[in-house]
């Protein structure tokens, strides 16, 4: 079994962090962010949807927003002195026209 990395938060969407055992569970940690889309990018995406395929502006926007939500979740976990978050899940929902909420949640744990 490899040593536990110091000062680093390990993320996993499985029940445990592969290769380690959970010593203590610290409860649910969450992070969320709401993003609205840029009008100019939206117009560009509108043109792109004439032919279909990838809308790169949306892909990047949602990627940034999801990373932000994930960072907030990790800060929540670190404030509880966790060194890992297991069973990470994502959820997306569209609130008021043109804005989306990106949500990340998981269980903070101390592994050894």
């Amino acid at each position, binding site marked *: 079994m490899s040593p536990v990395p110091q000062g680093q938060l390990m993320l996993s*969407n499985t029940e445990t962090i*592969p290769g380690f055992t959970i010593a203590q569970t610290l409860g649910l940690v969450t992070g969320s962010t709401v993003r609205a889309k840029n009008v100019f990018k939206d117009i560009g995406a509108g043109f792109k949807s004439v032919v279909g*395929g990838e809308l790169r502006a949306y892909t990047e926007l*949602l990627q940034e927003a999801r990373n932000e939500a994930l960072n907030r979740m990790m800060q929540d976990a670190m404030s509880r002195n966790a060194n890992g978050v297991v069973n990470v899940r994502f959820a997306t929902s569209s609130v008021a026209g043109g804005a989306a909420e990106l949500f990340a949640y998981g269980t903070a744990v101390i592994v050894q």
Partner: protein
Amino acid sequence: MAEDSVASVILAVFIPLFFVLLFAFGPYLLSAVVGTFHQRGLQKRLDIRKQVTLSSLPIDPIHSLSRPANVNRPIQGSGLVMANLSISPSWWQMFVVSIHSLFGGNITTLDSVIRWGREEVIQRLREEALNQGWDEVINVRLETAMIRKSSNASNRKDRGAAMEYLIYGTGVRLSPV
């Protein structure tokens, strides 16, 4: 003189009618022709990328089991891997869908773009995992979210719909045997 008036009536009626039809359906025709070629090209490039990646590996590195498929090698490290993609059908496809939804049934016109989107995002996860140096990605989950809905009744301008695919899993690094 009768022939002249017939000709002028034809000119006065059919030429404006032609332009009206062109402006009304021209974008859809353009969308049908260019969109089909564009999407076919995307699928073709994806197939090549997929073949190149898979042929360089003994097994497909991503799967949805909760532990590594290779049980003989101990786990050295792990981390979260994600990839996402937002796609939209073409205007033409949305138009066909709106016709289809009157009668119901199988909508084959959307199959191509939906299938491309799913395969593309799976391939992106594969590439992301290889870039980050993971040997396998376990517990892969795929999620779909509607990020933009077409509203063809209330607002004629907004003909596009968009959906987002998110794929994530836990990358594991295995020790060499």
